[in-house]
């Protein structure tokens, strides 16, 4: 057995003995056994002078390294028995900065919403942000040249640099409805979170980009009652159990009947406060029964099938939940803001 191997096995042996030492006394004994004047390591080194010169140097280095290591192990083991006795132990020193990153609030909000719907068996799906007129409007029952189109101010894209004509930035995630219908056989149950664009002046309350979560279900006997049920269940899970909803009939080209949905104010429970502008209600989403024209446009038979759709603004929900007063904060990406959530 070469000297180097001896040192190696000595280290392993000493390490194991230290490991199993049950008291400071036992540790001292191990130390004396291996490192003491008559200990095993000095014993091995006695033979070094008989080695050829060129082999002495590496053995010396290895022995040195072994001593330093064992010393360290002994010290650490002793500290493990009685750290308070160690005068240089300052428990008030800060711990290591093991920082974890934060998800963006919008991404987290979408993930939270998706999670609730996933539990109810909805599939999460995505779709393109650059769309054709057909998927954003036409197949969703927005007739050409109809005042309904004024409800959603649209960014159109220039036919340039190889981009074909007639494209726009989607104004809602309802395009996913059409695309999913085209590729699936009912029944379907899907939610589609994503980015949408509206031609709007930027202010603290409006931004030209925002996020939406669209949800829809189509089957043979899906009713308005089911729509009310799913929205109530969602709001009670996401916001608070005692939330109530109010449905105000409204108009969207792709649903009929349609409604805007208000939620009882989170803060004042309907009594009126500054958050709800003393109304007791907060507008939270739009919804309705999928219009037969939308079904027909994708080849579903509206006589056999029925379904609902709803859409909610992610920024609005995050702003309500966290009482954020300026929508632009979401896109400035100031860490002082982002790391609050």
């Amino acid at each position, binding site marked *: 057995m070469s000297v180097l*191997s001896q040192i*190696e096995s000595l280290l392993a042996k000493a390490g194991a003995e230290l490991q199993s030492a049950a008291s400071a006394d036992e540790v001292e004994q191990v130390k004396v056994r291996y490192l003491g004047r008559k200990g095993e390591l000095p014993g091995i080194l006695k033979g070094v002078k008989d080695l050829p010169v060129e082999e002495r140097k*590496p053995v010396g*280095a290895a022995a040195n390294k072994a001593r330093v290591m064992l010393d360290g192990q002994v010290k650490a083991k002793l500290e493990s028995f009685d750290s308070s006795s160690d005068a240089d132990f300052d428990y008030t020193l*800060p711990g290591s900065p093991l*920082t974890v*990153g*934060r*998800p963006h609030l919008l991404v987290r909000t979408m993930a939270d919403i998706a999670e609730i719907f996933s539990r109810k*068996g*909805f*599939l999460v*799906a995505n*779709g*393109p*942000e650059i769309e054709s007129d057909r998927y954003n409007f036409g197949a969703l029952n927005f007739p050409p*040249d109809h*005042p*309904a189109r004024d409800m959603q101010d649209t*960014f*159109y894209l*220039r036919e340039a*640099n*190889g981009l074909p004509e007639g494209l726009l*930035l989607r104004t809602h995630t309802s395009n996913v409805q059409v695309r999913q219908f085209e590729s699936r056989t009912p*029944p379907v*149950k899907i939610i589609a979170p994503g*980015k949408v*664009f509206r*031609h*709007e*002046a930027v202010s603290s309350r409006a*931004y030209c*980009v925002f996020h939406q979560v669209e949800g829809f*279900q189509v*089957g043979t*006997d*899906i*009713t308005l*009652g*089911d729509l*009310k*049920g799913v929205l109530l*269940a969602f709001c009670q899970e996401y916001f608070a159990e005692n939330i109530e909803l*109010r*449905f*105000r*009939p*409204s108009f969207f080209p792709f649903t*009929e*009947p*349609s*409604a805007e949905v208000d939620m009882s104010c989170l803060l004042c429970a309907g009594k009126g406060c500054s958050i709800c502008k003393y109304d007791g209600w907060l507008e939270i989403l739009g919804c309705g029964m999928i219009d*037969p024209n939308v079904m027909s446009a994708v080849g579903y038979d509206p006589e056999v099938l029925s379904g609902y759709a709803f859409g909610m603004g992610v920024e609005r929900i995050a702003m309500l939940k966290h009482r954020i007063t300026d929508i632009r904060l*979401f*896109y400035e*990406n*100031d*860490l002082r803001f*982002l790391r609050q959530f």
Partner: protein
Amino acid sequence: MKISYNWVRDIAPVDWSPEEMAHRLTLAGTACETVIDLSARFAKMVVGRVESCVAIEKSDHLRHASVSIDKESAGKETLSIICGAPNVAAGQLVAVAQVGAVMPDGMKIERRKMFGIASEGMILSERELELSDEHEGIIVLPENLEVGAPLATVFGVDDYTLEFELTPNRPDSMCAIGIARDVAALSGCTMNRPEISLTESSEKSSDIIQVEIEDTEFCPRYAARVIRGVKVGPSPAWLRDRLVASGQSSINNVVDVTNYVMLEFGQPLHAFDLSRFDSGKVVVKRAKAKEKFVTLDEIEREVDESVLMITNGSDYLAAGGVMGGLNSSITDDTTDVLLEAAYFDPSSIRKSKRTLGLSTDSSARFERGIDPNITIIAIDRAAQLLAEVAGGEPLAGVVDNYPKPIEPLLVDLRPERCHQILGVEVKRPEIEKILSGLELGIANPGAKTEAISVKVPTFRPDITREIDLIEEVTRILGFDNIPTTKGYLAATDNRKTEAVEIQDDLVSTLWQTLLGVGFNEICGSGLADGRLLELIDPGEPQIVVANPISDEFGSMRNSLAYSLLNAARVNVTHQTVDLQLFELGNIYAPGIGKKDNVLNADHERMRLGVLVTGQLQPHWKTGRDNLDFYTLKGVIDSLRGEARLAELKLVPAKYPVFQSGQSFELRGGVKKDKVVGRIGNVSSKLLKRFDIKQSVSLMELDIAELSRMIQPGRGYQALSKFPASDRDLSLLLDESVLVGEMLKGVERVGGELVEKAVVFDLFRGKQVPEGKKSVAISVRYRSANKSLESSEVDGLQQKIIVYLKQEFKAEIREK
């Protein structure tokens, strides 16, 4: 749209308060957002007497008035008011806004000082009160009023304005009768429509005027009436009050009547000065390209074939359905009036309105679709009112050109279909009652089994299908009366395609890993400043917005570098200088998505962008450590490990976004030659442009390309039971040696017994010769099936040393 509450109640008599009416209508889909108390708008406004009025010396037009507003003080206590109107004079009774009053435009009256004189209120003009456009002088009130009386009693506006946010599908509700119809349907009250009685002269309208329509598609109906002997002047108070309460200012009696009838019946009317029709005919025809026309608002506009003109055969007198012409408007000298009531095609009006760049009360109604059969009632009503308030004499009859009358539609409603959609059964008699309440006719009342046949009047152009009728039933019934059910729990087959599944999983792994190693997620808007994009990636094609809100949002980002650098700029500006940022988001460029069409997105690709700058949080154990290029390389290693990605190679490449020489492609894929991303240190020129005064490292990776680099699982690997041996080496190397390459070589040369080779120290300095670096590496040896003999390890280590000496000219400093 604004409508007077009293007006609605005159037609639909209910005892609802304004707030209750607003609430009930809103819950039935006729959204009434705001109720304005009109007497409240006269709060702190009273009748005052001007006791004295003198010019202010230092001003060229201002005067100083003393106004008493208290009857008891008999002129002894007065308010000091500075006034600019030329017609203020001592002895007048005037309308005074006291300190604290709020004007209709929101301005609050406050105590002020000008030229050293206090002003404690304001003497009001009609325009300031939004009573009319008159602003030349103040209102001089009749002598018989009492000083100090509240102004509300003088103007007698004991009314409320109901302000509606109407959806585009409900043109029927854009008038008092339409709103009243909903109120009647909800309350069950009976409507009182205005009675129209008319005394006509023996002369006939048709003797004076003929109507020719050249384009009956744009204009299916045009009716005209002639009223002679009109005296243009102010409107009576009742008419002014109704208009003001409905958000219209009073102009003169003739124009006011046309506005009144529009607000009452929803039929826009136009009054022409008859003298412009000396040709004896109205000709309705499209304009020609590039012609000019001056509208009533005194603006010259360019018109073309999309605009329908009302002409006398030669001159253009009005842009049909949008706005009258300046040349045919009612003036103080007008005596004979030609009244127009027409029906214009909605989508044609939309095009016309767009060409003119003009949206009016009239175009707003036509483009949504008015009732084509209200024409005669409305024009007769206007003639009656002109006789009443302007002394006009209507000629006999209406000249009505209506070649193809538009008939009411018959639409079937199956009660069982209604049940199927709502999830609750609404009984046939109840459905019939709701529909009748909305003045929708039942063609087969009392039928038992067949569908309810509904005769839809022409004022409801939105109702053409069964579902439209179901919607009417729902909104009157109220959503609250539909029980919630749990059909949403029904199971569906939610399969994803394999490509979507793989991509979703990858994105989620990358996201979690980055958060775990301390990176904060940002979210860019996607819209970008094209000029900055061009600086980042010169010559790369951009997607350009045709109608941007500003240059800042004029293009779509074609890199994530844009959003990351913007976020870095914002944070550094606020002294947050140590940043670890990432974004998982789309970039956009023509055609870039075609190849990896997971989302059918031809012009989008999902990318991961990562940016670091500054330092890790300093710590007493580890000191300071920069966040730099090597941090990013560490991120790549973490991501590769977590997502099981194949190797990524750095290949020098020229990207203008990066400092040359510190700019690399990331290559990978099956043949390891596919460019899947880029990494480097951001160029100082760009940093300057983003106001960042510290070095920044950045990388971008393409998600679809990464998803193709995922390696199949290797299955379970047995754990070695045998100890490892570590050997350290300290080397002196030329600066040109690439340490990463050298380590790979060590692992290769050492063979399968080398578990890992790592660099644990690198330094240059005093003990190291110029042009050299000192590098310490540690090699770990381990066998899967035996304890390694020291000699065996020594042998391998020796082989490595030889390799390092030969291949990298390494000097071994110490074993």
